[in-house]
């Protein structure tokens, strides 16, 4: 998994470095150090250390780790978090929060329907009141333009 992560970082770092060299000038028009100076150093170092890490890690070849028995639940929570952001954009903050809490508690806290239902409604409502009413902060209204 680590090699895959390093390869992904290397891929993005390669693109970053290419842009730094190809599109950003080393010197400005006034002859001073330009916008490409620092990114070129950072990009080159990042690519070099990623390559070195890949090579050194491959030489040590640690035995493969078995994934955690909780990988599935981690993926479910990550997916629900992504769904929360998407739902905020579609149906607005309050409904998205209630749906997220209901789904998350239904998955994680099984066998307590009344407790889950109460938390799924009351907590988002409290957060909505705190952010929208008390703090007057922005709250997504969603594409449906609901009033809350």
């Amino acid at each position, binding site marked *: *998994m680590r090699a895959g992560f390093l390869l992904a970082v290397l891929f993005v770092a390669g693109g970053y470095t290419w842009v730094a060299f190809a599109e950003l000038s080393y010197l400005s028009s006034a002859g001073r150090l330009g916008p490409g100076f620092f*990114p070129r150093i950072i990009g080159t170092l990042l690519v070099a250390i990623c390559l*070195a*890490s890949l090579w050194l890690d491959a030489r040590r070849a640690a035995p493969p780790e078995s994934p955690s028995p909780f990988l599935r639940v*981690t993926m479910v929570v990550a997916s629900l978090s992504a769904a929360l952001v998407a739902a905020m954009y579609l149906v607005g903050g309050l409904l998205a929060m209630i749906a997220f809490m209901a789904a998350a508690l239904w998955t994680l806290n099984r066998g307590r329907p009344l407790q889950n239902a109460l938390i799924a409604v009351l907590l988002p409502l409290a*957060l909505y009141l705190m952010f929208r009413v008390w703090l007057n902060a922005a709250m*997504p209204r969603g594409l449906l333009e609901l009033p809350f």
Partner: protein
Amino acid sequence: MEVFEHLLLGLSVAITPANLAYLFVGVVIGMIVGIVPGFGPAAGLAILLPITFGMDPAGAVIMLAAIYYGAMYGGTITSILLNTPGESATVASTFDGYPLAQQGRAGPALVMQAVASFVGGTLGVILITALAPLFSHVARSFGPPEFFLLVMMGLLTLIAMIGGNWRYGVISALIGFALGTVGVDLETGQPRFTFGSAELIGGIDFIPIAIGLFGLGELLHAFYQGLHASGTGGIVQYQKERRFWPDLRDFVETRWAVVRGSLLGFCVGVIPGAGATVASLMSYSIEKSVSRTPEKFGKGAMAGLVGPEAANNAASSGAMVPLLTLGIPGSASTAVLLAAFMLWGLTPGPLLMTQKPEFAWGLIASMYLGNIALLALNVFAIPVFVQIIKLPYRILAPAVILVCTIGTYSVNGSIVETWLMFAAGVFGFFMKRLGFSPAALVLALVLGPLAEQSLRQSLTISRGSFMIFLERPLSLWILGVTAAVLLLGVLLRIPARR
């Protein structure tokens, strides 16, 4: 005398009813953040930052700072009662805290850790009061080369001290630097890595990244480790013990451990990048080595608990010195505090104490009051916090994810930034899982623009010569301290490898 005048000015700011209320709310939230395992002060600060937007700057920063040092107190309660550190700086407190609790001395251990934390935290604030003006005065003679070296010192120290693979630490910091270069170049006005996106013109905002890495990322990692399934069944029932209060012998035997821990913690905390975790572990090693009964360490030695406790609280105070006087945070938590300062248009640095004395001294004065409030909370409100420990993680975690998401959106009302928070959360999960350092990434992201600007200015002054970093006495001094700290980091790793 000038210091006392400043302190009185600060007290007049800190003791307004509103600021006292913010301080109290801050220390309570800090305690809660500290006792929730897998959830450190950086996460707490990042997530709660948006909540402070409606407050006045002094009140907001007083509250956020209280969360920061309050977390150091709270983390120990779980270390003693559950053998699970609430956050990394209280790991050393499990070594002797939990054995003490198992021997029926949880009450005395909890009170002694509260007293040690209070002494460490208060001594740290006294030293800030005495030394911050001096640091501020010296820092006024710093030029671009010194600031660049200080940034590098902070990052290198962090990478050297966090343990694990140093290459992954460097990669994490370089990713942070790379993210910091996105947006308009401040010297030439040329956009960099924006790819025509209007959202990226202003750069990548620090808050979604910090909330994602420390909030969502930490939670996902906690789920992966099965924290939601572990429960709190092993919690020590301290209420059933016959004696809650420590006896006089506990105080007498550990008095020098507290003093040593406090002084060591403050000195370590002042060094950018070193932090409270390093301070507490170093204090534990020192106490064990100077003890006449080292064999008791790990089996319930009170000195093994109070020394690290005093050290981590003094270190959290010490870390405020480079933040306030140089504008350089030494840890992820103080990086979030720096971001909070900047949000209210306050620029920490050499001029803060002279240009905004009511703010800087108000914050320092509030730390005295905060430590008193924390001492009282830690002694008299333990049953309340024990109830919070018992809150199931499977309910707590979705609630925190909600606050992370809504909090991120509320900063700028941007759904793009909310997606950025989510992406940072997933990235942060992999970083933690694979041994990379989210703290180094965040610190580099915050310090990246300062590092780039000071490097370019230095090389412009020297006409391209890197010798400028070796020619100035202050630069040489910073290089010397950096070398010494890195050497210490290497020496600390040698026993671990054996």
